[in-house]
């Protein structure tokens, strides 16, 4: 996946991203950055939920152009879990995931079957026929993940997937994420502003700050950028140094 010279903003003249270029390697990447760094914006552009002012995002050379077939093909390749998971009133979890699958181009029957599989992958078997509005916060985030993977995308974009979860739930969610994204050829980008989300789950780390990519490389290189004590402090130190808040 290539973000190619993207410029984008929500208000005219105020770009959040300017000439932003980043080639994301296959595998799992964590996108770190403080609030307002542009992580969600970048993932929304990657999902084609927002259109850049200039530049393009590409997957295998495919660009989502408006009124063009390539847009549907591109969207078919991408799964997106937005930061805020919303629930359709009155729908069961499986119905909601199946609807998302249908929107992604699966037939109704395929979507229904795929929804069952996706619900099982995220550990929601047994409650898939309950109304999604009765799910707990953690279950709703897993529902969001199931929605994102139901059509078996090539690129999975997870926007703050563990936000709002307690430490135990986060650990569980990471395990689910790991198994759900354990497919050859799948590219995963998960954004977070919490450095303790960084784990050996990820192959690559990228640090985004004020719309600028401060670091993108293997996790080991990222850790090397820290001060070299225990891992948590190293991660925090590396992160702080990269976003320019190094107090040492």
């Amino acid at each position: 996946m290539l973000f190619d010279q993207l410029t984008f903003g929500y208000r005219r003249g105020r770009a959040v991203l300017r000439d932003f270029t980043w080639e994301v390697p296959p595998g799992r990447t964590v996108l770190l950055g403080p609030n307002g760094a542009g992580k969600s914006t970048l993932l929304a552009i990657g999902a084609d939920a927002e259109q850049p002012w200039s530049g393009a995002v590409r997957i295998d050379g495919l660009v989502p152009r408006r009124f063009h077939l390539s847009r549907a093909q591109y969207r078919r390749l991408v799964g997106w879990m937005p930061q805020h998971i919303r629930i359709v009133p009155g729908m069961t979890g499986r119905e909601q995931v199946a609807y998302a699958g249908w929107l992604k181009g699966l037939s109704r029957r395929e979507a229904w079957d795929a929804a069952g599989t996706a619900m099982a992958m995220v550990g929601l078997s047994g409650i898939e026929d309950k109304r999604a509005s009765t799910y707990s916060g953690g279950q709703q985030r897993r529902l969001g993940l199931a929605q994102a993977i139901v059509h078996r995308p090539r690129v999975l974009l997870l926007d703050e997937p563990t936000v709002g979860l307690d430490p135990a739930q986060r650990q569980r969610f990471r395990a689910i994420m790991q198994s759900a994204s354990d497919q050859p050829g799948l590219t995963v980008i998960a954004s977070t502003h919490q450095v303790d989300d960084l784990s050996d789950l990820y192959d690559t780390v990228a640090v985004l700050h004020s719309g600028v990519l401060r670091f993108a490389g293997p996790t080991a290189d990222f850790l090397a950028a820290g001060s070299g004590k225990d891992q948590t402090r190293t991660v925090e130190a590396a992160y702080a140094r990269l976003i320019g808040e190094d107090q040492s």
Partner: protein
Amino acid sequence: MTSSDDSTSRWLRRARRPAVWLPPVAGVVATFSLLALDVLPDRGTLSAWALAVSSARLYAPLFAGAAAWESARLARGGLTGLPAVRPRAAIVLRLGGPLLAGAVLAVVAVCVILAGWPYVPSAQLGSWIGLSVSAVAVLAAAVILGVGLGFRMPQVVASPVALLVTYLWVAIPAGISDPLWPRHLVGVFDTCCEAAVVISPDAMVGASLVTLGFAGAGLLLTLGRAWWRSAGAAVAVVALCVAIGANQVRALEYRPEIPRAGAMACQTAADLNICAWPEHADLLDEAIPVVVSVAEAMRAANLPLPNTVTEQRGVPDTVNITLSADDLRNGAVGLRLDFVMSAHPGWDPPACAAQEGWPSSVLAVYMLVWLAEIVGVDGTRLGATAEDHAAVARLQQRPIDTQRAWFDEAAAALKTCDDPDPDLLP
């Protein structure tokens, strides 16, 4: 959960959808409200079909509200905001398709009850198709509009707004009595069409434009990105279509019809050429003796009588009749009164009446009763009071030439806005 539990719960989930429960509920309400009307057209006629199809007027707001509810539900769940592979049109179709199908089925059910099924007229086929397609188009546009509003508004707001907007569109114009033409913009023509007329192309074009406008507004709300820009464009499209449509229908009167043309079944009797529409040819044998007796009575009273008696409208120097099996079975009162109406062409108020009043109109009651009694209809059936009836009875005791002279003088007075000569009051 067992498979039977699963299928039961899936069935129950489907039954909760408005597309499943709304059509029978709305169908029952529409049927009873139409059956409660004072006068229902004969089954197996285009008029009955038009009235049955007009149930779409009741359904449209309900189904628009349901469509808004369903789409707002999806929008609230964030599904409409997901970058979808399916085009928005497919999403609209999945949301609105079952609702539209349900609404059409409800209309069909009313048609079966009111008009008979399968009712497809051999004549007036164009009008039958036009009325049917127009009603379905109104329902489709209402559903699309509802989906569009649901995409843009919270559930509790979208549904009432869709219901209200659609109600304003399909129900309010029919209640406007001055001017009359706004009712023809709705696309539901419940007052159309007796055997002698077909739907006016102007009414079809005008109503189609407005229907397209509302459907377009719904699509703009569905497809557009910025809310205010979409809403502005939607309002502009509706306003433009209503303006063009209004220009198309503003010359029409109460009924959106034009006279029907085509071959007729004719017979000759008592020097009269009597013509009926082909579908009424079998009524001619029963109608001719009545026509002949009325003609003889009018001739005996020295009243002018054209040589042609026909169901075709708009033909000069003819008596315009409408044949109906029901009327012929019940004394042919309607057929006899058709002669009364054609005996004097000036029943409408003169142009000056709007400013100066029409005091001479008091004579019309006596003239109508007098004519009705000549053609064999009891004057009281026209709503005349016993006093009016007694006055006409006094007139009838005079020689027939005197009565005719009175009639001619009263007819002349009726064309003016002056007070009638007291001598003319029988």
